[in-house]
């Protein structure tokens, strides 16, 4: 049985809501079948006020062994490093986070905010938010680059805005069943089992991408074409299994015609949402995508694209997703 404490810092509860959509295991299974001992959670916790505070302090002092400490949301440091922009159970949340991260065997950041600051850390970062062990792509964050939990692990980042419920539950089950050693992390501390592949891996539009056929317009246009060329889709540059493990068991943003915004990467939201950057591909001289698929350079990309367009069969210029 693994004990879990789940806190929210500068959070929207989106990861919690995502987690509640989980199946196999669902939240009830996790607790009744996998014996997960959810000590407290902001939405699911039973204890209030005084009793809840005692439980938190018992974890801090080691009276209650804490196996997994999960943080959702940013660590808020403002104003002036005091953390008073986010008070929780009688003290700045950042102080709880520091104490509990030290007390826990394993620390898990769920969602972009806890991983690297996410949207609250977007300029001008009014709350002085940061992630647990990264600030955007920079190592350090709140706990510092050298932080290791009691089990000797860095913070495990499960990014995404929100994280998919499977990414959360499978890692929790792995940790709870003694498979922490099997979790290979990438350089951003993301479990490679989920984040080695690209968002584009498994995208239903990938054949349009193969022949460089772009979507012309939202709505009816999304019945054909790839969203990379005009709508700023980051599928080829973003690491996630969104098209391998579908959302809500049904679909993904790119399948439904929405460009990937790159929300599992630390730069999200990209370009700090500057004017002209939302749902629009950034281009060089109005034609060539400024960013090309990972591992390409502009010259080889253009050569490949030219060849692909010549090779494009007629069906790649027509609707594939039809009534």
């Amino acid at each position, binding site marked *: 049985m693994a004990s879990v404490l789940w806190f929210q810092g500068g959070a929207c509860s*989106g990861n919690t809501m995502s987690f509640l959509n989980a199946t196999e295991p*669902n939240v009830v299974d996790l607790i009744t079948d996998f014996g997960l001992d959810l000590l407290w959670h902001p939405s699911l916790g039973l204890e*209030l006020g005084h009793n809840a505070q005692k439980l938190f302090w018992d974890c801090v002092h080691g009276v209650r062994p804490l196996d997994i400490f999960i943080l959702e949301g940013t660590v808020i440091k403002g104003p002036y490093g005091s953390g008073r922009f986010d008070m929780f159970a*009688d003290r700045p949340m950042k102080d709880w986070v520091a104490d509990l991260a030290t007390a826990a065997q394993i620390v898990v950041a769920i969602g972009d905010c806890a991983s690297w600051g996410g949207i609250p850390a977007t300029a001008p970062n009014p709350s002085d938010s940061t992630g647990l062990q990264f600030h955007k792509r920079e190592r350090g964050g709140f706990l510092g680059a050298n932080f290791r939990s009691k089990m000797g692990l860095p913070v495990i980042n499960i990014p995404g805005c929100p994280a998919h419920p499977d990414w959360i539950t499978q890692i929790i089950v792995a940790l709870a069943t003694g498979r922490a050693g099997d979790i290979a992390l990438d350089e951003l501390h993301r479990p490679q089992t989920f984040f080695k592949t690209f968002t584009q891996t498994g995208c239903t539009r990938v054949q349009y991408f193969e022949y460089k056929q772009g979507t012309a317009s939202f709505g009816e246009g999304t019945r054909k074409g790839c969203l990379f060329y005009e709508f700023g889709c980051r599928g080829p540059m973003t690491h996630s299994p969104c098209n391998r493990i579908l959302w809500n068991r049904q679909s993904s943003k790119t399948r439904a015609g929405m460009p990937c915004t790159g*929300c599992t990467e630390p730069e999200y939201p990209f370009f700090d949402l500057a004017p002209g950057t939302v749902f629009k591909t950034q281009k060089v001289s109005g034609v060539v995508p400024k960013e090309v698929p990972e591992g390409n350079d502009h010259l080889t990309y253009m050569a490949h694209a030219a060849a692909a367009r010549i090779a494009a069969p007629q069906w790649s210029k027509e609707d594939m997703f039809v*009534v």
Partner: protein
Amino acid sequence: MPAIDLFVSPLGRVEGDLDVRVTVEDGIVTSAWTEAAMFRGFEMILKGKDPQAGLIVTPRICGICGGSHLYKAAYALDVAWRTQVPPNATLIRNIGQACETMQSIPRYFYALFAIDLTNKNYARSPLYDEAVRRFAPYVGTSYAPAVVLSSKPVEIYAIFGGQWPHSSFMVPGGVMCAPTLSDVTRSIAVLENWRNNWLEKQWLGCSVERWLDNRTWADVLTWVNENESQYNSDCGFFIRYCMDIGLDSYGAGVGNYLATGTYFEPSMYEHPTIDGRNSALICRSGVYVDGRWWEFDQARVREDVTHSFYRGTKARHPFEGETRPIDPEAGRRQGKYSWAKSPRYEVPGLGYIPLEAGPLARRIAAGAPNAAPFQDYDPLFVDMVEKIGSSVMVRQLARMHEASKYYTWTRGWLDQLDLHETFYVKPVEHESGRGFGSTEAARGSLSDWIVIEDGKIANYQVVTPTAWNIGPRDGAQLLGPIEQALVGSPVLDPEDPVEVGHVARSFDSCLVCTVHAYDGKTGRELSKFVVNGAV
């Protein structure tokens, strides 16, 4: 008996953390302070950004009602850019908004609210054992299936929007998707699965149609006793249990209500404007004060920051709104105690007053006369409030009632989709403009005011249902709706003030919407229950 100050921090299970301070005298709450204690500054982040940034940023204000944030952010841009929204897009947006709410209704009820019905303070009730059997967390016979099935309606959201939470698929001019036949048929199947397995089998014990036949409180009481299936359904049981443990007797609130309405009749809102909004709504808007209905007018909204941790003294309209945070420690010295602003609404002759937002407010608006044929007219909750008054129970029933309504409407919208027509009309991205977009999140009125200048956001203000309900006192010292609702609540056991939780949670406030809470009048930090001789 001396007055007791109870400080409950964290209250928990209100989606985010709510700290509540109440003064209790002779077992009754005599005053209350609700304190939102977390600040992220989304409105500051949006300033100077791409006009469409709100489509990405505002859903992240609250992951519980992210689809609602997206819905009103898209309409704010539609108004500002003077777009055309084709009927198919209006239908898809309606479906998305409704599916998010249908997810929220059972998830909120079982996971956040009903757990407290198993509190040991109610052990003397003859229905207590049954309440525990049904509602105990994780193992309750109703808890587990309802919480698991709550993820069904948002599968439909994912079919059209890619994922829930946090898609940004509604854009000015329509929606990004162009569904195929199987998207629609699968959505219908998922919706019917949810209706069969949760709404009718577990919650109602009867058909949706039978429940919607109830037009008065007397009808509801007859319904409960009509047959065993209804009597023993979760709804039938909930009504009986509420009346046994007294949840029908406190938590009334300010008694004045605000609904900005939601769901547009496709043919009535192809060219979204502020002026054309009210008459295009299916789920109507309306302000109800002292027994009288008024038409909702966004120009009458103000945000007061007298007791909020922001600079500024004057109550401002959101188009001129400011968000200038101060260190809460300095704020406390000025009598401020919350990160929530205090939204107020000007009623002619009464000045700026606090209004309750949420499902009960929507149900009261639905009881107003003169509904157009396509608009919701439903007298049930006006009758209930007239007959038995507002309470924790009535507020909950209003929320649950909407499950049947929204199911029915969503099914109709799915049937209306014309797969051979367009879902998007590309708009002109004007360099400047002003827009107002609004909807009803599960927990109440949610609105955006956007000002675009020189192709970027010059001002962006969001007023959430949580702010309407949980906002602190205003400059006139008028209590916010939850504060007011807490006054008069019994507290049987100061060590376990479950009643305070019932009242606060009956508003289903997503605190993360506005963000959290802290101390009040004295400025003292009370870490636990503190007995205070004279308040």
